């Protein structure tokens, strides 16, 4: 039997979308979603579910979509995932559910991500919410940070009846979902809607509360029965090479916070400025690099280069992001590594010296290891450099709580139940791992909620 092809996703034309920050995928219509869901083989043993870090009932949800039971599909997806409209858009599905789909071998796995985004969007359009009224249990939990780990932990604990308060340092909630991932991938009305669910079920979100600065950790320990720390990993890593002090050199986080959180793309009607030149070099090839490059393009840069020491086949970015970036004219320069940055007498960056690399053996992650080819240095002219080399755990909170045990690289240490060395204080998300994915952070938040609940009922 010939395999029916994936129902294609309608998208904004690349020429048009590089002039705006609107969503690139336009989303499935109900007919398209049903047709895509009907392709599902409804395997006896649904491998897709084993690929999902939060173990969603993928098979049943797809079946409900195929039967046009969108409301039921939505409620079932909400059971294990507080924010399906977001994960449907940003999960690396090719490494998870879709990667495990038996149809993946044919190159045409079910488009699970887009189906889930469809159901969640449908619920939003129809003003449908999962109406849980929790039974109060009298326990109070404080959560530090409002990223995906916190969101999941908060929802789970609230559903169990805890009084949950989230403390967020920034003036908007969502963590990376708000300040990092651009609106053309994750529209902000989607983020706002998903967050409004938390408030609806009674989670108290307190913005502008920097725990360790204006909110005392000691006071939190006194006032709450348990604390969950999910302060993320936003601290930028730099190369520590010559020229990094130059004007025009950004960390990806600065570039993205300016654009996404502070809406610098609307400057000057919004106040925060951004400088983006004509020739932009982005160092790295993960999601963060793709987001930076694609934002730079939208800010009007003529040439945007991804500078990567491996090949894009080894890149950590989602396949869809690389594909979209290529469509948008981002130029991939592979097998090269940065040495130093060059500047003019006014202190502005003018170029970057790169060295060619070759593969020799494999590294710890199992990927081929790039080594520099001596003498192959060359200079590329650029007027903006964006460093997307990864991040390390946020230091602000940690430096205020010296008694909290951490690894040498800054990650918070926890036991098997996600409890830190301070009794009743749990931790999760990127603050533990130093950076992973939205759904891993969520899975982490869910496990921690379970441990916290056990701890509270000890």
């Amino acid at each position: 039997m010939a395999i029916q092809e994936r129902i294609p996703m309608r998208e904004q034309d690349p020429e048009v979308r590089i002039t705006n920050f609107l969503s690139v995928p336009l989303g499935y219509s109900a007919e398209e979603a049903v047709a895509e869901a009907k392709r599902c083989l409804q395997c006896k043993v649904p491998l897709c579910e084993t690929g999902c870090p939060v173990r969603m009932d993928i098979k049943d949800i797809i079946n409900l979509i195929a039967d046009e039971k969108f409301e039921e599909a939505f409620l079932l997806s909400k059971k294990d995932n507080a924010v399906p409209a977001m994960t449907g858009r940003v999960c690396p599905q090719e490494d998870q559910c879709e990667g495990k789909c038996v149809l993946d071998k044919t190159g045409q796995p079910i488009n699970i991500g887009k189906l889930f985004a469809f159901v969640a969007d449908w619920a939003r359009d129809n003003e449908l919410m999962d109406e849980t009224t929790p039974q109060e249990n009298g326990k109070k939990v404080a959560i530090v940070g409002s990223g995906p780990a916190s969101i999941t932990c908060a929802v789970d604990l609230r559903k169990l009846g805890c009084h949950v308060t989230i403390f967020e340092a920034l003036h908007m909630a969502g963590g990376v979902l708000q300040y990092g991932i651009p609106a053309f991938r994750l529209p902000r009305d989607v983020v706002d809607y998903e967050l409004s669910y938390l408030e609806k079920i009674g989670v108290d979100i307190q913005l502008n509360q920097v725990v360790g600065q204006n909110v005392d950790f000691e006071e939190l320990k006194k006032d709450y029965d348990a604390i969950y720390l999910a302060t993320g990993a936003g601290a930028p890593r730099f190369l520590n090479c010559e020229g990094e002090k130059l004007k025009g050199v950004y960390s990806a986080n600065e570039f993205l916070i300016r654009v996404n959180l502070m809406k610098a793309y609307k400057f000057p009607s919004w106040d925060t400025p951004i400088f983006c030149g004509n020739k932009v070099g982005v160092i790295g090839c993960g999601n963060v690099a793709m987001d930076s490059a694609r934002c730079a393009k939208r800010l009007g840069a003529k040439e945007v280069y991804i500078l990567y020491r491996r090949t894009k086949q080894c890149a950590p970015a989602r396949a869809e992001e690389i594909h979209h970036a290529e469509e948008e004219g981002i130029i991939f320069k592979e097998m090269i590594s940065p040495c130093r940055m060059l500047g003019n007498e006014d202190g502005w960056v003018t170029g970057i010296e790169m060295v060619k690399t070759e593969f020799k053996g494999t590294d710890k992650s199992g990927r081929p290891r790039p080594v520099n080819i001596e003498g192959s240095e060359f200079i590329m002219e650029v007027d903006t450099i964006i460093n997307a080399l990864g991040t390390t755990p946020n230091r602000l909170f940690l430096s205020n709580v010296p008694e909290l045990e951490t690894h040498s690289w800054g990650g918070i240490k926890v036991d098997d139940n996600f409890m830190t060395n301070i009794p009743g204080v749990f931790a999760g998300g990127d603050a533990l791992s130093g950076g992973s994915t939205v759904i891993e952070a969520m899975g982490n938040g869910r496990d921690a909620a379970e441990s916290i609940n056990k701890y509270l009922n000890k």
Partner: protein
Amino acid sequence: MKHTITRKEDLNAADYVIDVIAPKVAKKFRPGNFAVLITRSNGERIPMSIEKAEGDKITMYIKRLGKTSRELDTWNVGDALYKVIGPMGTPPPLKKYGTVVFASDLVCGHAENNAMCRELKKIEGNHVISIQSFPTKEDVYPEKERAKKDADEYILATGDGSVGRKGHMIDVLQELLEERKIDMVFAGGDIPALQKLSELTKKYNVPVMTTVRQIMVDATGMCGSCRVFIDGEQKLACIDGPMFDGHKVDWEAAISRLAMFKGKEAEAMECYNEKMKAVV
């Protein structure tokens, strides 16, 4: 939380003082902290040194510089800021230093000067000398807004000598360093001047901590915009500072980076002026 302005007065033709309701910030304030202001929902996050905290209010000295500071200047008592966040930063330790000087020549420095002297003087064993310099007589802040009452000794200077000593804070400090033993110098204000001041204290082998103002975005240590280089090591002014050992700061980089958005700032100001013209 409504961050209402409860006082707004001119300090001189360029600077003004505001008191704003911000109870949590006020409660945790220590001298050397700054606050992050967002005036409107589409505004920038701008750092401002806190001059003092009293009850549920904080006081800040603001220079009319670009769009945000000028627009805020058109607001009145009773108007409210969108967000006031903080206190941010890691202030230097308040302890016994011996004979300790705070020198300032600019709005933020003056605020820090007042704040630090007030607390340093309370510590036994400290002899606190405050130096404040202004360009000319008309620029000198009203007496109640100066560190005079907070320090053991107070030296006012003006560039043209129209009142107080003639010269800049650096000239006054140099005289002091010549005359007597100074154990510690703090300073805040104009960045190039702070570089010179740091070089001066080095000559006399006196330790110095100065504010290294840098452009900030989140001010929570997540963007690296405010990075400064201390003895070759990268630090973040928003969480590790903003006060650093002036002898170790890479001043050239600090001065250069502060000008990164000059072009954009001018554009914002122009747009704002156009808008104001349209209103009139």
